[in-house]
């Protein structure tokens, strides 16, 4: 299954913030975690993650520090700030509303024909 591009884009920020809430990570580790969480079904264009991370950094949601990888190379780690936690809570609330509404709508679709049957009979 291929996930729609817009959906991937919309969910990127809350996903990144949520993943970083679990601990500091570098970019590649975030991408790996996303693949893990979605069983590999959510494929990001990896390069796009970094402009997003930089935007979150500019907004003060994440903080970046340079460290070194196991191989001794420069590696940038990102961690969630207090403002980032607040933003995450806000996003969670928003997505809660959206998924709630979707669930109800889909329940209606599933039970819809039955609910309509009496009306049809009446007509």
């Amino acid at each position: 299954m291929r996930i729609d591009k817009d959906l991937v884009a919309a969910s990127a920020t809350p996903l990144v913030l949520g993943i970083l809430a679990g601990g500091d990570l570098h970019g590649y580790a975030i991408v790996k975690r996303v693949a893990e969480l979605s069983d590999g079904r959510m494929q990001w264009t990896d390069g796009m993650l970094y402009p997003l991370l930089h935007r979150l950094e500019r907004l003060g949601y994440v903080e970046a520090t340079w460290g070194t990888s196991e191989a001794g190379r420069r590696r940038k780690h990102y961690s969630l700030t207090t403002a980032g936690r607040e933003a995450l809570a806000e996003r969670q609330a928003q997505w809660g509303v959206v998924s709630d509404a979707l669930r109800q709508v889909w329940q209606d679709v599933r039970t819809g024909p039955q609910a309509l049957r009496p009306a049809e009979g009446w007509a």
Partner: protein
Amino acid sequence: MSDHTTLEAQIDQWRAYLQRRQAVVSADVDELEDHLRGQIADLTAGGLDDDEAFLVAVKRMGGLDAVSREFAREHSDRLWKQLVLVPGEPGARTWWRDLAVLLAFALGAGLAIKILVAATADEMVMVRNAAFVVLPFLAGWFAWKRRPAPVVAAVVVTVAAVLALAVNLYPFVPAGEGDPGMTAVLAATHAPVVLWLLVGVFYAGGAWRSHPRRMDFVRFTGELAVYLALIALGGGLLIGLTFGVLSLVEVDFEAALSGWVLPFAMPGALLVAAWLVEAKKSVVENIAPVLTRVFTPLTIVMLAAMFVVLLVGGPLTAVDRELLILMDAVLVLVLALLLYSISARDPHARPGVFDWVQLVLVGAALAVDAVALTAMVTRIAEFGLTANKTAALGLNLVLLAHLVWAARLGLGFVRGRQPFAAVERWQTAYLPAYGAWAAVVVLLFPPLFGFA
């Protein structure tokens, strides 16, 4: 352990390719390379050979054009330092076509000046209309380049037209022979401010709400001022030399100079400077921010001296509106220093010494202004308000509000309580206040003060 030289060469090549993108700085390249290597290591551990792993990893990274465009969107300040057009962006025009269109607009502006000069002998009419006949050509050039939405363009043109009608049709009462009244001068000096911000709307391609575009316009304005000064200097030199040589052979250059050279050279210089700022492909840093680094400490010294002199130096009761106007000029200078160093600052850098220096600068300006304002308010209470005093006082308060809040946010930033984005955003969010105030002076002051 197998030999990875081919892989290393491939990564090097990929790095070099990426490094050519203006929006991607070397720290980003390091970050992306770390990602690429992580991906390759995982893929080779999964059984792929170096070549395959490299290809898959590069593919997953995404098209470099698209990725660097995304970087450009986030870091428009970097692009500003180098090249204005993102390579590969659709609609990128060749520079000579750009220049040809620009020269046509410059010629139009020159003709408009000629027509204005021919149409009237009244100097005041020329002065108050100069901006109205020149700036539309600059705005027109930006409109041609950026294609703003027709609705936005229509609104901008309407506002400009209302201003033009006001400054020309208000029944201003001259103060004396050859001496225009206060409100006439105020309207003529404030209208260009509003017009300039309207040019900014076209500069931003109609996206006047966008804070990054507003910051771009601030950068543009600063660079334009520097380029214009340099062009004027060079032009002055050329005119001086021509004058010298022609006077030796007793040809009078005066008529040609004031009749033809200046009317075309002055608006031409403005438009060519605008084109240079837009098109410069240099890797040179912007000059305005460099100047701020030099002048910020010097200005602090100046402000400290002013503060001491104002406090101990003598009776402030004798001061007149000139003090207010000078104070406005000082605040504008401080604001420019602040704005241009903010516009060039790396938004990701941690608070540093210069941020503290800047805070001291703003603090000193506020202290000096507080002393001057106290003196002025007592004087105004005694002698009442004139149009000039009200305009100067109003501008002072508009500037003061800008600086006080900037100081507050700046303090929050150096203490690590505010992201830099908040400091930056405040500057651009406040810009329309200047346009609004200038519009009030142009449109409401004349009727309020009886057109005197």
